[in-house]
C-alpha cells in the first residue's frame, strides 16, 4: 500500500516543484523582511521555518486527496476489507518520504540565510523530520473534513492550526535549548511523544471522517 501511495504521489511531480518553491520563496521573503540583523535572524529562524512548514503542508495535502476522491478511490477504500486507517497511515508515510524529507532538506539548505550553526541546523532538521508525520496526518484529517466544501487550504489552516500548537511549542523549545547550549533531550522526547500522539489521534479521527466524506 505504501508503494502504491508512493507511485500515486510520483504522478503529481509537477506539484512538488510548486510546493518546495513556495516554501523556499516564503522563507526568503521572511528573512528579507526581517533585515540583515544577524542576531534577530538567528533567533527567529526556527519559528519561521516551522510555521512555513506547517502552512505548506496544509496547503498542499487537499489537492492530492481531492483528485483521489474524484476518481472514486475513497469509496473503494471503504469497500476494501483492510482497515481504512492502514490506507491513511500509508498515505502519511508516503508523504513523509516525498514531501517531508525534501521539505526538511530545503529548510536545511536555506539555513545559511539565517546564519545558523551546524549544530542548530542539524537539530532543526531532526525536529522537522519528527514533526512532519503529525503535520501530514493532521493535514489529511483536515482535507477529509473539508472534502465537500469550497474552503480549501484556508479553511484547513483555520481548523487545524490550534491543533498544531503543541508541536510548534515543543519543536521550538528544542531549538531554544540548543541555541542556549542546554540539554535538549527532554524537549526532544516530548516533541516525539506529541508527534506520535497526534498521528494516532489524526488517523483515528481520519478513518471516521472518511466514512462521511464519501457521502454526496
Amino acid at each position, binding site marked *: 500500500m505504501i508503494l502504491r501511495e508512493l507511485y500515486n504521489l510520483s504522478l503529481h511531480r509537477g506539484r512538488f516543484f510548486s510546493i518546495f518553491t513556495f516554501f523556499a520563496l516564503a522563507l526568503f521573503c521572511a528573512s528579507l523582511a526581517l533585515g540583515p540583523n544577524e542576531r534577530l535572524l538567528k533567533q527567529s529562524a526556527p519559528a519561521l521555518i516551522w510555521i512555513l512548514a506547517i502552512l505548506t503542508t496544509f496547503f498542499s495535502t487537499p489537492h492530492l486527496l481531492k483528485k483521489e476522491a474524484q476518481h472514486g478511490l475513497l469509496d473503494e477504500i471503504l469497500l476494501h476489507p483492510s482497515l481504512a486507517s492502514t490506507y491513511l497511515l500509508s498515505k502519511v508515510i508516503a508523504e513523509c518520504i516525498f514531501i517531508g524529507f525534501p521539505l526538511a532538506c530545503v529548510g536545511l539548505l536555506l539555513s545559511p540565510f539565517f546564519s545558523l550553526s551546524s549544530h542548530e541546523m542539524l537539530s532543526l532538521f531532526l525536529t522537522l523530520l519528527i514533526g512532519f508525520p503529525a503535520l501530514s496526518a493532521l493535514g489529511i484529517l483536515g482535507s477529509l473534513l473539508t472534502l465537500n466544501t469550497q474552503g480549501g487550504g484556508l479553511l484547513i489552516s*483555520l481548523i487545524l492550526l490550534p*491543533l498544531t500548537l*503543541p508541536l510548534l511549542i515543543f519543536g521550538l523549545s528544542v531549538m531554544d535549548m540548543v541555541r542556549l547550549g542546554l540539554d535538549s533531550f527532554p524537549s526532544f522526547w516530548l516533541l516525539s511523544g506529541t508527534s506520535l500522539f497526534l498521528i494516532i489521534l489524526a488517523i483515528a479521527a481520519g478513518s471516521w471522517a472518511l466514512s462521511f466524506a464519501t457521502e454526496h
Partner: protein
Amino acid sequence: MKVTWVKPRYFFEVSKVLFPIFIGLGVFFFAVGLYTALLTSPPDYQQGDAMRIMYVHVPASWMALFAYALLAFLSFFVLVWRSPLAELLAVSIAPIGALFTVLSLVTGSLWGKPMWGAYWVWDARLTSVLVLLFLYSGYWALYKAYTHTDQGIRAASLLALVGVINLPIIKWSVNWWNTLHQPASLTKLSAPSIHPSMLLPLGLMTAAYIFYFFILLILRARTELNKRKLLIQESLT
C-alpha cells in the same frame, strides 16, 4: 436507544415550562449577584476595587470551558447516534461558548491593564483561552462551509472531539514553554483561598451566568429548529 427525551419535540415542550423559570432565576441571581459583588463585598487589600472585575470574569471563563465540554459531549452523540436534538443543541452552543470566551478575554485584559500594566501577556492561561476561542471559530467555520448541514455538523463534531483532547495539552505545554522564556509566572489566579465574603458574590454570579447560558441556549435552539422547519417547508412546496 430510542428514548423519548432525546426527541426534539419533547425537549421543546419541557423548555417551554422551564424557560420562564430560568428567566426569573437568571434576573434574580444577576440582581443579587451584581449588588453583592459591586456594593457590599469588600475591596481587595492589594488590588482595590479593580478586583471586582473578577466577579464577571471568572464565571465567564468557567462557562466558556463548560460550554466546550458540553459541545464535545453533544458532538459525541451527534457522531454515534446522529441524535437530532444533540445536533440542534451543539449548533446553538458553539456561538454562546465563543461569546463567553470573548467576554472572559475582554474582561481579563481590562483587569490586566491596571494590574500587570499590559492588556495582553503571554501567559499560559491567556494563551489557552485564546486557543479555545480559535477552536470555537474553527468549529463554526467548518460547520458553515458545508452546504448540507447534516454533513457539516458531523465534520464539525469530529473536530470538536479532537479539539477537546488537545485542550489540556495546550494548557500544560504553554505553561512549560512560558517558564522557559520568563522566569516568573504571571498567573495570579492561583491565589490563596478566597474569603467567604468574596466567594458568595462569585457563586451568585456563576449561578446567574449558568441561567443566562441556558436561556440563550433554549432561544437559539428554538430559532434553529424553526429555521430548519422553514427550510423543509420551502423544499416541499
